[in-house]
């Protein structure tokens, strides 16, 4: 808003009243505007050709009975309404079950990868940001390296590391742990935990009811052992990228702020928690948003690694969409999955934005504290701040 309201100030003289300002703004826009359109036209053209047209086509395919031959806009293709979406959401058949399974798998993937990679990235960034650390450059490069490597290469590496007789199981064997057969083990981690507690069959209430063709008991399976290996891989590969973002933000935290905090007698942890972290807030938002979007779209690892197996526990919506369209030739359903995935990403990102939006918390809290009545209500960390004040 500030940039918008300051813009008229720079407008030429004689533009005091509203309508007049608009009129004269249109004047230069005749030639300047044309030049502007000319300059953006290559981008618009490219965007239109590679983004708008394909998206419109896919949207049409998702509500049509296109069979994969010729153009989807040809005369023989007809509109079938929400049939493809219904088959996925309410059909109750195999398509619904597959979609439900893929959502479950990916939800656990997101739930674990996003917090883990954000925390690890922040941790690494703080470490390599230390001025006292020797060879910082080398560490920064090393942590960033997995991000540069192609995901296909990393997947292949992972398949070797996590094979039955692979390095990971070899290391586990030193500690007397008999490692699982990682990429062939479809058992859900939560089911395994419950099983070790003696709950190995589903309670009737959970087994008989469900959502999207999957019983609640199966929703609660947790990521399979195979998916866990992919989760570790995602954390390993992407935390380097996000470390870089955090590092850039950390370099912007000026030394004086830190110094002032030191003068206030804060401990290292307090400085991190109450000084550094709040200043990194926008970066945390960026990292979590990028993480959420990226993890809902996981495809290459599945395509090169497991193709959805074992027992469909690494099936993800993105891979399911590809498989439904190209291998099962259900083009409409494949496109519908893609749009449902898009909707999920938009909703999840919007929710995340809502949850972490920048509230003017400190000011309000100070106000209330001054009020003298609500001091005890001030949540968590605020108590310490308030107490010191």
């Amino acid at each position, binding site marked *: 808003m500030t940039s918008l309201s300051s813009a008229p100030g720079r407008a030429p003289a004689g533009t005091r009243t509203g309508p007049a300002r*608009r009129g004269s703004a249109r004047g230069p826009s005749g030639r300047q505007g044309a030049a502007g359109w000319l300059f953006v036209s290559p981008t618009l053209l490219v965007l239109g050709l590679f983004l708008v047209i394909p998206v419109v086509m896919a949207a049409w395919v998702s509500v049509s009975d296109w069979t*994969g031959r010729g153009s989807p806009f040809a005369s*023989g293709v007809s509109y079938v309404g929400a049939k493809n979406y219904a088959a996925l959401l309410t059909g109750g058949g195999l398509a619904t079950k597959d979609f439900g399974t893929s959502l479950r798998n990916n939800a656990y993937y997101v739930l674990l990868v996003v917090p883990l990679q954000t925390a690890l990235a922040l941790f690494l960034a703080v470490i390599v940001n230390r001025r006292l650390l020797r060879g910082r450059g080398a560490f920064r490069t090393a942590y960033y390296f997995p991000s540069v490597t192609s995901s296909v290469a990393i997947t292949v590496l992972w398949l070797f590391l996590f094979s039955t007789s692979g390095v990971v199981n070899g290391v586990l064997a030193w500690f007397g742990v008999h490692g699982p057969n990682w990429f062939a083990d479809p058992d859900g981690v939560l089911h395994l935990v419950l099983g070790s507690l003696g709950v190995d069959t589903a309670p009737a209430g959970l087994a008989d009811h469900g959502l999207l063709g999957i019983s609640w008991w199966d929703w609660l399976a947790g990521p399979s052992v195979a998916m866990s290996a992919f989760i570790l891989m995602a954390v390993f590969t992407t935390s380097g990228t996000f470390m870089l973002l955090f590092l850039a933000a950390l370099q912007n935290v000026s030394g004086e702020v830190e110094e002032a905090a030191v003068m206030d007698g804060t401990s290292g942890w307090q400085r991190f928690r109450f000084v550094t972290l709040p200043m990194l807030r926008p970066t945390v938002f960026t990292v979590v948003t990028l993480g959420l979007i990226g993890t809902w779209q996981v495809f290459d690892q599945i395509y090169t690694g497991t193709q959805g197996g074992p027992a469909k526990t690494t099936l993800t919506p993105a891979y399911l969409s590809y498989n439904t369209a190209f*291998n099962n030739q*259900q083009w409409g359903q494949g496109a519908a999955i893609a749009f449902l995935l898009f909707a999920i990403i938009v909703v999840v990102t919007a929710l995340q934005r809502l949850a972490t939006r920048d509230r003017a918390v400190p000011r309000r809290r100070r106000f209330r504290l001054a009020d003298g009545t609500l001091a005890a209500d001030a949540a968590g960390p605020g108590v310490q701040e308030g107490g010191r004040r």
Partner: protein
Amino acid sequence: MNRRTTRRRTIAALAGAAGILALTACSGGSGFSDSTSTAQATSTGGGSLRVLIGSSGDAETAAVKSAVADWAGTSGTDATVSVASDLNQELSQGFASGQPADVFYVSADAFQGYASNGSLLAYGDQLKAKDDFYPTLVDQFTYDGKLYCAPKDFSTLALIINTDDWSKAGLTDADVPTTWDQLTTVAKKLTTDGRKGLAFSGEYARVGAFMAQAGGTMTNDDGTQATVNSPENVAGLTYVRGLLNSGDAAYAATLGTGWGGEAFGTNKAAMTVEGNWITGAMTSDYPDVKYKVVPLPAGSGGKGTLQFTNCWGIAADSKNQGAAIALVEHLTSTDQQLAFSKAFGVMPSVQSAADGWKKLYPEMTAFIDSASFAQNTVNAKGASDVITDFNAQLEGLAKGDPQKILDSVQTNLQAVLDQDK
């Protein structure tokens, strides 16, 4: 505020315009909207042919390239071969764009989809050697009563035995299993610490052979009714379940290997159920392992195995279908198929080449002998998802209930068959 909304409106209008443009551009401009291609007249527009194959390796690529080049030399029509890394994807792209390759491999499970949407030319009746193909292979590529696609070659499953392990366990040629009971017995004898008697992949394409031996099928003869949860199939799965739980047999994946051939080659198993492609892997990866090939034992329903095949498709959109048919005629001829066999081990799809193949591979006659009782895999349109789901359930067979597994597959397959009607 005002300015912002106008700007927003402009953007919305632009986006809308772009969308409409896209719609009109694609619906009007495409010259391939004549999707009434069931017309059987073959085009003879001339021009060169493009051949698209999904190759198993350099040997196959080189053999197909040289065969096509030979034909191009004698016929005077240019033809180029390209290798797809993901055949289904590249074929789909071609069909959608209206400019597919002229001649290409088609896998059995993708065949009905392409035939039903009119992408394939039904040229089978124009082949001179049509009656020479194995009848079951012709069945696999017949849609709506017409042969669309000439069978390229085929493979069957057989039992592969490690002969060193065999003799060390005190077994002789007389012990080669011909029944399920005998298979159970030899698997037990061949099992040692760190080695299973038998290993195979936990998927329909292997386990299904045991269902066939029990006399079961996946659908009825005309492919309209699913017969997955028949008592025969339950018997087949129950036998496999017993094998797995006996500890003398295991899925290849549980042994930490990718497929039966790897488990067999690394001697984590003394026997495996695989097709004739295993011979290539044995030669290149495990040249020291000595083995022999015998037909799979008979089950409660007699002899049975599965066969896998693919075919030479010709695009309905091809500009030069006459030449394409001539090329396929050349590629499926007895001599040419034997040349392919020599190069990369496949079994010819024509019966007149069977004797030649046996001479070429005398130690592997079990594969081609199995053709007489081999069953086709399910290839109904949309069935590949059902099979994927079946495979997922088969992975848990050792702890699962065969009847329950087959019941769910029955429901899924029937739904697909009803949709295809």
